[in-house]
C-alpha cells in the first residue's frame, strides 16, 4: 500500500506544492535514505578529497530508462535505472559512487507502482554500494509519457593506471563475455505478452562493477570493456573493431545461450547477437592475461559462465566475422534499423 494520500499520481505531484512534498517525503526519501540527500537542497555536495583518494579521474555518465512493461521477470525499470548507470561507470573501470534520479511520471500512474519502483531502486543502490544523492520529479499529462520514465546520471572515480578504451584492441587480444546472451531482450519480449509466449527466462539485469574490479585486480591492463545492452554483443564488437581499426573473429559455438532464449530467437527469427543484455559485458584483454582474467571472472557471481568467445585480428579492419559451427563464416554487421522496438 502506498504511503501517498492519492491512489494515483496527479499533476499536483509535480506542481512544487504540498502534494509534491508529500511524494518526496513519503516515497523518495525512505527509498534512498542517505545523508547527502536528506537536507533536500537543490544539489548534493561531494567532497573532492574523498574522491581523490580513490583515483585520479572522475567518470560521469547519464542514461534514460523507458522500458515497457515497468515490471518484468528478473527486474523492473528501477533496478534497470540503477544497474544501467552503475555499469556505464564500471565500463571505465571506475568505482561508482553517486547517482541522480530524475523521474518523469505520467498522470494516472498508480502510486503503488511508483513506490515499488523506488523501493527497488533503493534496494539496488544499497546492494551496489552507490547513493542516490539528488533528484527531480516531473508529472506530465496522460499520454505525454508512457507511465514512468527515469533518468539517472552517475559519477565514479577511475583508479590511477586504468586505461580502458574502445580504441585499444590489438591483434592477438582475446574477447571474453561473462555469460549467456539475450536474456533481457527475450524476458522483455515475453513480458509484453504480445506474442502469447510463456517462458521462465528472467532478465540478466545486474550490476557489473564488482566483476570489473575483480578483472582489473587480475589484469590492470584490460584494453576494452563495454556492456552489451541495446544492439547486443554484435554492436559492441563492431564499435571496438571500428574504433581500434582491427578485425574481430567470433566463434559461434563459444557463445552461451539459454535454451529458452535460443528457442524464442529461432521462432521469432531474431539474431541473439543483437538482443539486449543488461548484465553482460564484452572485454578485450591481452592474450597473455586471458586465463588470469577468466579465472577471476569465473570466481565472481556475475561471471560464473564467462567464456572466451573470439579474438582480435589485424584484418579485415573495422569488421566482425563469425565462424559458424559448420565451418563457414559470416560478417556480423551493425544492425540496420531495429530488431524490435524499445526494449530497455
Amino acid at each position, binding site marked *: 500500500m502506498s504511503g501517498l494520500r492519492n491512489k494515483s499520481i496527479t499533476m499536483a505531484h509535480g506542481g512544487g506544492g504540498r502534494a509534491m512534498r508529500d511524494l518526496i517525503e513519503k516515497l523518495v526519501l525512505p527509498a534512498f535514505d542517505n545523508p547527502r540527500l536528506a537536507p533536500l537542497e537543490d544539489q548534493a555536495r561531494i567532497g573532492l578529497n574523498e574522491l581523490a583518494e580513490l583515483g585520479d579521474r572522475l567518470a560521469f555518465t547519464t542514461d534514460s530508462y523507458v522500458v515497457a512493461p515497468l515490471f518484468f521477470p528478473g527486474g523492473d525499470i528501477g533496478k534497470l535505472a540503477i544497474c544501467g548507470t552503475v555499469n556505464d561507470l564500471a565500463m571505465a573501470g571506475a568505482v561508482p559512487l553517486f547517482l541522480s534520479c530524475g523521474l518523469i511520471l505520467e498522470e494516472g500512474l498508480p502510486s503503488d507502482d511508483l513506490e515499488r519502483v523506488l523501493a527497488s531502486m533503493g534496494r539496488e543502490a544499497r546492494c551496489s554500494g552507490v547513493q542516490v544523492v539528488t533528484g527531480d520529479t516531473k508529472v506530465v499529462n496522460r499520454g505525454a509519457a508512457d507511465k514512468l520514465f527515469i533518468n539517472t546520471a552517475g559519477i565514479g572515480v577511475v583508479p590511477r593506471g586504468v586505461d580502458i578504451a574502445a580504441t585499444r584492441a590489438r591483434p592477438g587480444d582475446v574477447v571474453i563475455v561473462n555469460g549467456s546472451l539475450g536474456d533481457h531482450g527475450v524476458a522483455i519480449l515475453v513480458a509484453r505478452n504480445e506474442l502469447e509466449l510463456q517462458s521462465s527466462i528472467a532478465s540478466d539485469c545486474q550490476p557489473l562493477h564488482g566483476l570489473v574490479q575483480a578483472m582489473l585486480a587480475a589484469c590492470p591492463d584490460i584494453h576494452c570493456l563495454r556492456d552489451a545492452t541495446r544492439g547486443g554483443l554484435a554492436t559492441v564488437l563492431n564499435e571496438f573493431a571500428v574504433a581500434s581499426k582491427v578485425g574481430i573473429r567470433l566463434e559461434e559455438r563459444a557463445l552461451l545461450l539459454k535454451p529458452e532464449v535460443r528457442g524464442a530467437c529461432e521462432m521469432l527469427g531474431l539474431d541473439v547477437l543483437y538482443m539486449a543484455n543488461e548484465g553482460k559485458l564484452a572485454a578485450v584483454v591481452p592474450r597473455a592475461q586471458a586465463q588470469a582474467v577468466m579465472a577471476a571472472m569465473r570466481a565472481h557471481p556475475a561471471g560464473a559462465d564467462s567464456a572466451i568467445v573470439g579474438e582480435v585480428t589485424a584484418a579485415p579492419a573495422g569488421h566482425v566475422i563469425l565462424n559458424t559451427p*559448420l565451418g*563457414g563464416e559470416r560478417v556480423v554487421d551493425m544492425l540496420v534499423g531495429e530488431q524490435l522496438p524499445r526494449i530497455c
Partner: protein
Amino acid sequence: MKYADEFRDPDLARALVGQITRLADTLAAGAARPLQVMEVCGGHTHTIFRYGLKDLLPPSIEFVHGPGCPVCVLPMGRVDDCVAIAEHPQVIMTTFGDAMRVPGSKKSLLQAKAEGADVRIVYSPLDALKLAQKHPDKEVVFFGLGFETTMPSTAMTVLQAEALGVRNFSLFCNHITIIPTVKAILDSPDLQIDGFLGPGHVSMVIGTRPYEFIAQRYRRPLVVAGFEPLDILQSLWMVLKQIEEGRCAVENQYKRIAPEGGNAPALEAIARVFELREFFEWRGLGSIDHSGVRMRQSYAGYDAERRFSVPNLKIADPKSCQCGEVLKGVIKPHQCKVFGTLCTPETPLGALMVSSEGACAAYHQYSRIAIVRREAAAVTSAG
C-alpha cells in the same frame, strides 16, 4: 535444441560437403562455368548465409538466389497503396514486422507510422482480427503478404471474420504464387540454371506435384528442400545426383513437413477466398501473368482494395537496378552497378536489398565480398 540441432550437425555436414564436392568437381570438369543451383526461397538464402554454407562448397558449384522473398519482390506502387490505406484516420494497419521497412515511392510503413499513422506489427493475421474485435470503432486492415505458405492463414482469418460477423476487418491482399514466377525465370533466354532447390514451406501447402513441369518440360532437376543447413546440403547433393545420373525429376527432401499431395484443407481455404489475378507486378521481374491472387467477389466486403480508395499507380523500378539479372543468376549481387554504393540495406534501391532474405541484403550483411566492395568504394570516393 530438439528438432534443430539434429539438422545442424557439423560432422554430417562435413561428410555431405565431401560428397557434394566430389560430384560437383566431376560434373563441372571441363565446363566453362560452375554448376548453378537456384534456391527459390528466401528462407534458403538466409540459411545459406547464416551458416556460411557458401564457404564450404567448391568453386565448381554456386547458388543462385531466387525470387522467393515476398517482402523483396513487392513493388513500390503496392507499398504506396498500403501507406495510403494506413493513413486513413480510422484505420489500424497491421503487418508482419519485416514489411515495415519496404520502401514505397515516397515512404515506408515505418515512416508513415512516425508521421502518425496507426501501424502495428502482428505475428499472425488472427491477431489483426482480434484487434478488430477490440476496436469496433476502427477499421483494422491486414497487410497480407507471401506465397502459398502464408495464404492459408490469411484465408482462414477472412473465413473466421465472416463466421464471427466481424465487419471492421479487411485484407490488403498482396499474396503471390510461386509457380508462374519460376516458369518466367525458366523462359528467360539468358537462363543458366542447372537445377532447383524447391521451397519447402510452399510445398507444405501445395505439395510437390505442381513442380512436375520443371522436370518434364524444362528438363531441370528440382528437390523440395527444408531450411536447416543439413536439409540444404542434402538437397543439393540430391540435385547433383540427378544431374550425374542424367535424370530430371521432382524429389522431396523435406518429407517430414511437406506431403506430396499438399494440405487439402489449406488449399480449400485458399480456393474459397482467393482467385488468380490476370497479372501481378514484381519488383525486379516486372509483370508476370497469373502470379498473384485477389479476393473473390463473394468476399468483397473484406477486401481493403475495394473498401478504401488507393492511388493504384505503377511505379517503375529504378533504372540502375540489376535485380532481374541477379534473380536469373546472370550476375552476382556484388556485380551489380549500385551494390553497396547507391543501394544499401539502409537505403535500398532494388528489391533484393530490402529484406534479410533478399540475396543482395544477405550479401551485404553477411559476406566478405561486400566488405571488399565497400572498402573499394570508400577509397574511390576519398580519392
